């Protein structure tokens, strides 16, 4: 009898605790994560975060792309390269595209990839657009005068692009091999050199997307 009574008394309390626990877990799930510490990321952290540059260039479809406005709120991977690049550019683009295909949609949809051409003479919209789309149709390709592109690179502490070779058809372009990752706070806390592997992207992108960055 005593047992039966105590069981009856426990039931509402038990229901209440389970409900509270679910509520607490639910609330915890909605709270964004704290920004990752530099040692939690596999990219190279900046000692002081870089401000997202404010510039507009022409997309491969002919539209103007306001970089700061159109990438606001996204994790944005910014890369400077060219379509005749034999190694670094296609490898970076292929690896990022492969990882985005494998990540959960709530992460991959929160990432934008923008590549700015360092070879505007040869990277015409007709060439650059299909070249990028072979990796991922959502990747944004931007073209602008090389002086302007170099000025943007300079603001991001990257070296200017430089041509090597005289043959107009087969010269190479020296450029930074680094992908800069801007987070939702419109700042870059980390960048990714050549040699970053798909496993590294798969590790870092969810952290960059899910963390609560102090928006400005």
């Amino acid at each position, binding site marked *: 009898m005593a047992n039966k009574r105590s069981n009856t008394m426990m039931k509402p309390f038990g229901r209440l605790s389970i409900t509270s626990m679910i509520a607490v877990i639910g609330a915890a799930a909605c709270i964004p994560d704290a920004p990752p510490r530099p040692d939690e990321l596999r990219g190279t952290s900046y000692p002081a975060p870089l401000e997202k540059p404010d510039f507009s260039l022409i997309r491969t479809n002919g539209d103007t792309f306001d970089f700061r406005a159109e990438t606001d709120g996204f994790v944005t991977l910014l890369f400077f390269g060219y379509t005749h690049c034999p*190694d670094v550019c296609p490898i970076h683009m292929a690896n990022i595209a492969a990882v985005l295909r494998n990540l959960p949609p709530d992460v991959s949809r929160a990432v934008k990839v923008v590549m700015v051409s360092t070879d505007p003479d040869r990277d015409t919209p007709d060439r650059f657009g299909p070249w990028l789309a072979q990796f991922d149709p959502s990747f944004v390709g931007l073209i602008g005068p090389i002086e302007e592109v170099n000025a943007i690179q300079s603001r991001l502490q990257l070296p200017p692009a430089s041509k090597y070779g005289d043959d107009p058809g087969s010269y190479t372009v020296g450029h930074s091999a680094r992908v800069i990752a801007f987070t939702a706070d419109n700042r870059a806390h980390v960048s990714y050199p*050549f040699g970053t592997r798909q496993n590294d992207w798969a590790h870092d992108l969810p952290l960059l997307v899910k963390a609560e960055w102090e928006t400005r």
Partner: protein
Amino acid sequence: MNWWCAAQDTAWSWTWQPYAGVWLMVVVLLGARFLLARVWSTAADSNEPGRPLLYVVGVFILWTAADWPIGPLGAGYLLSVHTVQYILFAFVAPPLLIAGTPKWLWRRLIQPDWAFKTAWTLTRPLVAFLFFNVVLLATHLPSVVDGLTASQLGSFAVDMSWLGAGIVFWWPILGPLPELKPMPYPGRIVYLIANVFIPTVPAAFLTYARYPIYALYELAPPINNLTAVEDQQIAGMIMKIVGGFIVFGIASVLFFKWASHEERAETEQA
């Protein structure tokens, strides 16, 4: 001029390149076989010339696997081609080299006491099985592939370890010397079939991994539109399907040989 194929950080080009070490290997293997046969053979030995054509085909397979274009493509660009090299070095060339060398030449080679003891130990089925599979697994570890294939010496070491392990693996099945106590036919078939399962481990890793396993091939200049993961999946299938096809093919030949051997024995008894 390079002497052996290793990974390079330049874009792939279909321009022919010479590899002096590969030619040297071909010359040494042919020279050793035919020169030693001339120098060491006695009148009695000349009755058994071996099967020189099989030996030459075996050396040709090694040459194909190591030289341009398969050599450099496999060493630095495509894991699938690297796996083709593995199949050629470990599964195709060794049986041909063993079958193409006359018995008396093998006997001369293992004449010194130490050589005979080493051959005896290595050709015990369990030892050969373990030796081959340890080499197989070790040479497919990411640290080994990424670390060794980037240098000419390392790449050479990997290729030669496949060839050596292949000869040790195939000896208990095809070895012609009775003094090394070959296994009976049923034992050979079991030995072969047992070996189908071990390569399944690296093959499964290659086929089902979500991301590329080897940095070397993931960060290699791309060829065509093949992604690193697709290349890796093709490599896994080659290792499992082509390797399995060769092993089961030879196991079938052994089975029929065993059946005809038994039939002959029964006929002789009758």
